[in-house]
């Protein structure tokens, strides 16, 4: 059997081709992962090492730049990111869970229309509402306000949240809800005591996706905030005119800014796929 056949036939074959494809696979993965690895390496260098020509490959790692970033002006940006991400994720769950529940368990006429409406707002480009929202925020003195940014992120993620939560709710056997209703459970009791525990994985997947999108969001962050409410991606804008002086610091800041989402995504890979496809792929 040729090596090519091995590719289309994963169930058998010679160890030789297995070794070959393993090598090819690791090479490809290494190329894709390399920029991340390089970012980490740069972060543990000193500035002269990071801006040397030719690039420094071997060096003694130092935490200097991490300390520099953490003791400098970075932490408030990080805290703003956390506030906006966690706050909007919480709001998405509070608003999205009842809506998803209504759409999944107590289906109404035109459920599909409502669903379509919700999800279409996710893909309405930010161009659609940017200018009026900006003017409104300006007039209400809400520019550079983390609460305003949290509300915007809630809007961005709510449609996705409703879709995802609904897809998880559809998997719960209907009898469970019928039984609860016969026992006289109110809507709220039904929601908190039965629905929430049953779709814990769904809530995890929804939270993960909301966190990723709001943590990494840049467009609204850079246009609606400037200093007090600015988030981690906005902090990185300060490095944009880098002239070879702050590469190590940039790498350290980039590493720290990326860490929460990277870890969350790595831990919850299964939820990641389902979330990214809005529940379509399990």
């Amino acid at each position, binding site marked *: 059997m040729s090596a090519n056949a091995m590719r*289309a036939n994963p169930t058998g074959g010679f160890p030789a081709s297995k070794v070959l494809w393993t090598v090819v696979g690791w090479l490809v993965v290494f190329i894709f992962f390399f920029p991340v690895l390089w970012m980490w390496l740069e972060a543990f260098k000193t500035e002269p090492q990071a801006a040397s020509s030719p690039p420094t490959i071997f060096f003694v790692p130092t935490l200097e730049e991490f300390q520099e970033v953490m003791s400098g002006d970075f932490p408030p940006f990080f805290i703003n990111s956390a506030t906006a991400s966690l706050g909007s994720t919480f709001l998405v769950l509070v608003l999205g869970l009842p809506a998803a529940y209504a759409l999944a368990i107590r289906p109404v006429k035109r459920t599909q229309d409502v669903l379509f409406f919700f999800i*279409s707002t996710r893909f309405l480009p930010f161009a659609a509402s940017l*200018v009026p929202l900006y003017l409104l925020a300006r007039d209400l003195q809400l520019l550079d306000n983390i609460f305003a940014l949290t509300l915007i992120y809630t809007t961005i993620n709510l449609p996705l949240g409703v879709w995802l939560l609904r897809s998880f709710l559809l998997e719960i056997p209907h009898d469970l809800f019928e039984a609860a209703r016969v026992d006289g459970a109110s809507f709220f009791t039904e929601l908190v005591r039965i629905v929430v525990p049953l779709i814990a994985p769904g809530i995890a997947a929804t939270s993960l996706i909301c966190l990723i999108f709001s943590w990494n969001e*840049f467009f609204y962050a850079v246009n609606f905030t400037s200093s007090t409410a600015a988030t981690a*991606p906005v902090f990185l*804008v300060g490095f944009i005119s880098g002239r*070879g002086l702050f590469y190590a610091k940039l790498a350290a800041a980039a590493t720290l*800014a990326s860490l929460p989402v990277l870890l969350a*995504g790595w831990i919850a890979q299964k939820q990641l796929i389902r979330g990214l496809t809005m529940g379509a792929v399990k």
Partner: protein
Amino acid sequence: MSAVAEMGGVPGQSAASFRREAWLRRLPLLPAFIFVIIITQIPFALTVYYSFFDWNLLQDNSFKFAGLANYARLVTDESLRIAVWNTVLLTISVIAISVVLGLAVAMLLNSEVFGKGFMRTLMIAPFLIMPTAGALIWKDTLLNPLFGLLPYLLAPFGLGRVDWVNQYPMVSVVGVEVWRWTPFMMLIILAGLQSQNPEVLEAARVDGATALQAFRHITLPLVRPFIELGALLGSLFVVQTFDTIFMLTHGGPGEDTTNIPFLLYLVAFQGFSIGQASAIGVVAVIMTTIIATVALRTLFSIFQVEARR
């Protein structure tokens, strides 16, 4: 709001309880519904309204009705044409390349290789890295002609002095975006491949099918919906690319990498031309709606197939 208003209950009830039931059913929907309408629909209506006015925030009392002047300016203005072209070029090339690469990597990760789980873990990192951070790392530490690693590694091939971001700006943007979106495509296509029954391929092989035949007639039809799903969802995101362009090229040199979102940013937040920016917004909505309609139809049909199982 008509969608909510027309929701009914179960037939065969009295009018009063029917109405009560209908309200109970739609009540949990309302908070989310109202919230979305206030923050997306009303502003969009205002965007359309503003697009008919001449209004610059830097000039006092400049709010004047302009009719279709903003749209007329868009038609004659070369900036928008360039931005539309750049948006189309960027979206199509990023999606096409990352689908092909994503399929290849997914097939590698689905075959009998050592350390699959770990490979997948490393592979999805580019998608999880903050896009602004990723773009800066590429620009300053990998592509920089003086200190970057890539020119250093490519020097033996005579490419040591290439200033990628300035000489090949669109190639650089597409490259960074492909790096970011290939893992996304890979994840979705891999999920498709894993739903495949290996015995079918085994049977095909026993029947004398070549690897290429098996791929074309068995594997490809199976993963096609997953590829379509990934491509459509991906294009909805890539069409809105802003962070990578802002960090990597800032739309330049000149307007070489200015796409629609970046043009909007320039007009609204650098030029403060509210009317003009609104007109661009309306055009962007029309363009996205076309893609989104196709995408959502596909998504919905896949969704229903899944739900029926």
